[in-house]
């Protein structure tokens, strides 16, 4: 039972239930992402794990020791849990220098930790700014200081609350890679919260998708993208084309022809989702008129006019940009088609 275990957690603010019987386990060295739209209870779960919020229902253990159990009335205060929490707004102490911020949770008489701090400052390229104050730092520097401050006391569990949301898009990719490297080196059980699916897929060994206080799917990043368990997950990971209809002989009739709906009984109402990259140009097939065609760099954005009205969104990889107004033949990649009960 090493690492972080949250089991049967439910939580409500007044009448508003934000977590409903959620269980999460994070092994040492593993990075688990809680992914979901804003207000789905992700941050509350982190605060419960850190002990900053009182546990209402459920139990929490860290490295086998119970730190919180609502039924047994156990509530270890945050300062004795050995968790590092990195806040979305970083929460750097404005009256302390970079070095003092990072060393805040460590024992100044512990030479090993102090040496670790100095080494980390050097490796992270923060040595020159060690004496500076938080407000003089760039967003990326503040992020690194906050991360190092959380890691400096060598916690057993690291909690990251939207760690990249304060950065502009151009810096995000680089800081993400750095953070992943640092966290993996530390070998700590890490639970990260984000609302950005791309970020979650990049960072996580495992992703838990949350919606309205429930975990709706738990799996490896590729599994979530390729085999979403429900329409919510499919739509959360990227744009989709939606078609609705009744299942007849294991398929639904759509403007793109009959699409298979495995697992759905005949006569059921079905929702069929197709990712834009599931629409491919073909030598022969359904011919549609191109409404708009715009280059996106590695691929192009194509919007096609459907016969019964409405449009179909597609991504074509590379190649020459087809002209708007012309007609093009397309085919559907069945592997990018998902069918769910409507």
């Amino acid at each position, binding site marked *: 039972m090493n690492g972080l275990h949250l089991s049967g957690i439910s939580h409500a603010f007044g*009448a508003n239930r934000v977590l409903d019987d959620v269980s999460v386990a994070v092994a040492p060295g593993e990075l688990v992402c809680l992914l979901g739209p804003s207000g789905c209870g992700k941050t509350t779960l982190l605060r419960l794990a*850190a002990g900053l919020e009182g546990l209402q229902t459920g139990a929490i253990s860290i490295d086998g020791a119970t730190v919180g159990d609502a039924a047994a009335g156990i509530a270890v205060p945050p*300062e004795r849990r050995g968790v590092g*929490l990195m806040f*979305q707004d970083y929460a750097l*102490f*404005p009256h302390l220098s970079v070095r003092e911020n990072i060393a805040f949770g460590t024992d100044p008489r512990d030479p090993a930790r102090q040496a670790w701090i100095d080494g980390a400052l050097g490796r992270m390229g923060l040595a020159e700014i060690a004496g500076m104050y938080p407000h003089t730092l760039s967003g990326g520097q503040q992020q690194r200081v906050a991360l190092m*401050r*959380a890691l400096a006391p060598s916690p057993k569990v690291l909690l990251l609350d939207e760690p990249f949301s304060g950065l502009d898009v151009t810096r995000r990719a680089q800081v993400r890679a750095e953070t992943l490297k640092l966290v993996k080196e530390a070998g700590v059980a890490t639970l990260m919260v984000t609302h950005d699916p791309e970020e979650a897929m990049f960072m996580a060994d495992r992703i838990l998708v949350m919606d309205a206080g429930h975990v709706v799917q738990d799996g490896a990043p590729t599994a979530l993208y390729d085999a979403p368990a429900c329409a919510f997950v499919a739509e959360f990971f990227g744009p989709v084309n939606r078609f609705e209809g009744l299942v007849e002989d294991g398929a639904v009739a759509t403007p793109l022809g009959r699409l298979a709906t495995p697992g759905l009984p005949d006569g059921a109402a079905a929702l069929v989702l197709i990712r834009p990259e599931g629409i491919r140009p073909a030598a022969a097939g359904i011919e549609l008129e191109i409404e708009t065609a715009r280059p996106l760099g590695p691929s192009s954005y194509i919007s096609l006019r459907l016969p019964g009205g409405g449009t179909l969104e597609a991504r074509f990889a590379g190649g020459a940009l087809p002209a708007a107004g012309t007609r093009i033949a397309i085919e559907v990649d069945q592997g990018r088609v998902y069918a769910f009960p409507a």
Partner: protein
Amino acid sequence: MNTASARVGTPAASLLPKLSIWTVGALLAALFVALPLLTVVLIALGGDTEMWHHLASTVLGLYVERTLTLMLGVGLGTFVIGTATAWLVTMCRFPGRRVFEWALLLPLAVPSYILAFVVTDQLEYAGNVQTWLRALFGWTRPQDYWFPEIRSMGGAIAVMTTVLYPYVYLLARAAFLEQSVCVLEVSRTLGHSAWRSFRRVALPLARPAIVVGVMLVLMEVINDFGTVDFFAVRTFTAGIYDVWLNMNSISGAAQLSSVLLLVVLALIGIERFARRGRRFHHTSSKYSALPSYPLTGARGWLATAACALPVLLGFVLPASVLASYSLRYFRATLSVDYIGFVLNSLTLSVSASLLALVVGLFLAYAVRLSGSHFVRSATRIASIGYAVPGAILAVGVLWPTGFADRIFSGAAGLFGLTLGAVMIGTIAPVVYGYLVRFLALSYGTAEASLGKVTPSMDGAARTLGLTPMGALARVHYPLMRGSLATAALLVFVDCMKELPLTLILRPFNFDTLATFVFQYASDERLEASALGALTIVGAGIIPVLLLSVTIARSRPGASPERPEKE
């Protein structure tokens, strides 16, 4: 039983305040502040209606008319001067602009009664101005020429406007600085001139702030006793003193106070409404250097004169007159017990400011830690004292302290002891009055500085291994220290200047600098009290300096100062 058990676990249960130390404390503080106000209303309701009919048929109309005229005059005057000077120094370039940015705040250091004495001293028949005019034109008798009577309604409006406009200036300036220049530039590109942009964009955007400023001015106007008494302007406040001390009717005074309280509530209502309106200010996050329209030649000097005049009249004149009198009549000053008055003022102000700091800090933490609506409302009640005129508080404080005395002596009687008045006749009622009146100041500052410690900083400190007390010592205290000192200082200085409350609630034969100056100068003995008045003005300079530093740093986009490191 049924209803009680049904409540458990439902949202209704959380509406009931939990009895924590914060809830109880906030409730006590609110009661403590509300007590004098309730007392006033109760005395008024319990008083005989005959007195009320007498007042209503004789002086009430006059009081209403005088008070409204004074409020209208000073409100209009401070609006024009405060807004115009704020616009000039923030948006235009002219000789001396940088000096005026802070110098325009200086009159705030001069209590209006002190300016009233100085101006009267200069403008009366034997004063410098008329003497000089007579010498110039060869007049010899008062009948030879006409000269305006300064001790009048017009004089009171002029004097109060001159020392109170900085409230409007301060808030209007902050509002103009906060405005994104982009908004003004958009207005210019849409074809409006600079002047039209000011009227159609800048002024409406700053309006909530200006309204707040004018409301604060009006609260000061109805609080004033020294000026209206000396100028014989019969306002409500003057009336309360007259009915209480000369007609010896506390219920009559309480009845007048209750009517005035309605005005106060209206002012608070308008002020809070305007503050809420300030939220839609920041429509764009882009800030660039302010345009600074250059005013050259005669227009530049006109702007200089417009800014110089209020500073000269409101600060340079009183300060220099008082300084020269202090030097010339140094011996006379020391023949009165100047040192004793200073010590009395210090004792009162230090006790009140420390007490206000402790209570203000407690309330700030209560709101943060409990976060309940109940505590929030209690705190809001506890911080309305700033708007209540000293005269009303004086009426309301006296009775509860007398009541406390009776309880104390009753309790002592149970043990066979005889106990005289513990509170009445001591400085306790004065400190109580100060606390009620200035709590908002210390609470506001404590709340703002506590706001600098974000909840996630608390969380960070805890997860990094600090106990709650540890977080208080290593995060809260270092971050709040400076602001708390400022809070105590602001209350301290206001207590030093305070007159209407002190005048009534002070122990017999106990004088502070303010009461001493008021009594001596009212008797036309300004010379002997000049040093005392100068001391009050000197103390008043401190917050002005603090304010000018703050306002210089407050511009969005300006690089914040690095926190001091020891």
